[in-house]
């Protein structure tokens, strides 16, 4: 792979048809809630663009983020990701090892300084000088700071890189933190999820290549087009929630009827992600569709937010104080109303027809 080929040329070489490419662009445009005409704009920009150099750093992680991207059902639109970029360093995927692996990273940094994209998966341990995770003898902290300096933008893939994730869970022995806790002077996109949805990674890259800038982000730095709504907002079981039909155990009639999993601890209402619409495994299903509540993996501190099986909130018991409070409320309301009426009537009966003489002191 060379960085000097345009994506269009590259696709032709790979025997990918124009039709497949346009389908990909249309899917990207619709997923990112862009106007319909932008599919062609994406196609146009992507086919002309020179593939940007990407350096992928993996820190305290489990490789599921990479798995999510590479093991998605094949051939997928997501696989095109590797045609869109020139992946110059990724220590799980690259053939090179040892000094030559590090040299390829240094070369890539040197050749595209200030222009390459930095993708990070995994959290960064900072306790005790960051010694709990090292690559080629250097701490993750050191490596991140060095590579981030020359990056055009940083994409934090997965909840660990975005918010600290599981390494950051209590008691956090290594002092793991998110990329955004360390790097303050670069644009960072958080693509959270454990693992994140592959199409979201692709979508953010397509947006960057098409428009030359990162997409609009929410207050946690996540692209709004994918994280703008909650799982609950888009859940196909939502009508049952609205009707008050809940599964009480994983094997009761409600569960078999596909009722809402809220009482079984589903975190859908507080979780912002696109699972309910893009789904997983080539659009097959997503956790709630498979009968398990959402864990809330794309939100900060999801591991420490209580049991996966306790409900977010439960209605208070029968309104014990309710009746008394309602009676008191009605009584106070009635008293105020009677007093107000009396006051207004007094003012009305005190009314003397106004004449011109009444308008001057």
């Amino acid at each position: 792979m060379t960085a000097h080929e345009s994506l269009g040329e590259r696709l032709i070489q790979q025997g990918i048809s124009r039709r497949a490419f346009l389908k990909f662009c249309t899917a990207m445009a619709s997923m990112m809630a862009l106007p319909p005409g932008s599919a062609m704009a994406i196609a146009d920009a992507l086919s002309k663009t020179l593939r940007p150099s990407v350096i992928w750093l993996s820190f305290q992680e489990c490789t599921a983020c990479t798995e999510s991207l590479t093991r998605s059902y094949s051939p997928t639109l997501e696989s095109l990701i590797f045609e869109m970029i020139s992946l110059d360093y990724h220590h799980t995927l690259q053939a090179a090892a040892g000094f030559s692996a590090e040299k390829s990273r240094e070369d890539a940094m040197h050749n595209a300084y200030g222009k390459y994209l930095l993708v990070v998966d995994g959290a960064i341990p900072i306790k005790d000088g960051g010694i709990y995770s090292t690559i080629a003898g250097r701490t993750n902290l050191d490596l991140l700071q060095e590579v981030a300096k020359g990056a055009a933008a940083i994409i934090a893939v997965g909840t660990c890189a975005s918010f600290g994730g599981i390494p950051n869970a209590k008691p956090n022995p290594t002092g793991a933190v998110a990329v955004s806790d360390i790097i303050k002077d670069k644009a960072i996109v958080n693509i959270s999820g454990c693992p994140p949805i592959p199409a979201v990674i692709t979508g953010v890259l397509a947006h960057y290549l098409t428009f030359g800038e990162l997409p609009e982000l929410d207050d946690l730095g996540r692209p709004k087009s994918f994280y703008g709504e909650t799982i609950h907002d888009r859940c196909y079981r939502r009508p049952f929630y609205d009707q008050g039909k809940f599964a009480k155990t994983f094997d009761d009639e409600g569960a078999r009827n596909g009722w809402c999993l809220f009482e079984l601890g589903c975190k859908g209402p507080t979780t912002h992600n696109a699972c309910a619409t893009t789904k997983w495994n080539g659009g097959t299903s997503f956790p709630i569709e498979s009968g398990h509540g959402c864990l809330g993996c794309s939100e900060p501190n999801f591991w420490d937010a209580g049991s996966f099986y306790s409900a977010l909130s439960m209605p208070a018991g029968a309104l014990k104080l309710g009746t008394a409070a309602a009676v008191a409320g009605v009584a106070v309301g009635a008293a105020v109303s009677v007093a107000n009426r009396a006051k207004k009537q007094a003012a009305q009966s005190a009314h003397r027809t106004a004449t011109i003489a009444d308008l001057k002191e």
Partner: protein
Amino acid sequence: MSASLQKGLSVLMEVIDAPVASFFSSCVHCGLCAEACLFYTETGDPKYTPIYKLEPLRRVYQQEYTLTGRLAKMLGLSKPVTDQELEIWQPLVYDSCTLCGRCSMACPVGNDIVYMVRRLREGMAVAGHAPDGLVDASRRSLETGSPMGVRLPALMAQIKHVQADTGIEIPLDVTGAEYMVLMSSMEIINFPEYLGAVSKIMKQAGKSWTLCSEAFEATNSGVQIGVSDIAKVLVGRIVDGAEKLRVKTVISPECGHAYTALRWDGPNLIGRPYTFDVLHILEVLDIFRLEGLLKTSGFEDAQLTFHDPCQLVRRGGVLDQPRNLLKMVASNYVETRDSGKMNWCCGGGGGVSTIDEAEALRFAAFRVKKAQLEETGAKTLVTACANCRIVLEEALEHYQMKIDVIGLTELLAQHID
């Protein structure tokens, strides 16, 4: 009897009704009404935010009619409304509010802000804080029958002139006529062409109509100053006249607040329904058009535009009629920006044109109208309110803009052979 703070506060307690209470309790303090008010947009001064103009009324409501307000008052924790404060508020409640109702349209929770301004004026007036210009106009209305002091002989003289001009007899005190036509003093003194136009149109339509010697004045200073007792006397004169002559329909002239006073406020003021209908002259003309009784010839080719009087379009719903009528006689009619329901006020409604102290502010507020007119490039401005017309003419003169202003009824009559 004389004005006093005590009387003012008592009246405010009296005029706070369920709508006022619900408006105050549903206000979300968003401030969107500010951008709707020409006095705010053209000065940038936040004191002109419509809801802020109601502060004394809100405080009386809060202190007298809410539980927490009553408790606070009992414990001496609330700030009572003072005479000094009402004096400070006078320019906010009168000089900088034309009762145009644009704020009521902008309010996202549907509060009728102008309804509340009208109620606050009730208290302000009997507390002695109404502007002298409006007090004098009200006095003249009660004493002479007209805010400008126009008496019957003056009308008779104008009738003679108009009859000489048109050769059409103007009927007076005809019992059983279908329509009773009212005038505003402004029309009698400044724009008598209106009377000539009506007589031409009525003649063509073959309708019976009359003026009433005891009730020819349509305007109502009581509504503007905000004293319902005075408004009631003034409306009562028209009701008496119309019922005495047993007319079917009373026609409000080209005057905005007269229409509001007569059509919407009137029955509530006198406490019973009328025995006759009330229509604005433009509504009558549009009915004539539909019935084929209004036939015009020729078109105005020069570009012209229309100024919607607030009381007609926003408070009265007369929106399509002027456009239907204009299309009969104008080939090159253009709308201004924000025309129709959200049209900007001329700056002189709600009695503001009678307040001398408000003149500088009124000219400042006119800048928005000026911009609207300049954007169209029209050299003729048509309207349907004599008060708007005089205010527009003065301001156009002030800004040295060469635009002619004409009443729509008059324009139509020019195209009747």
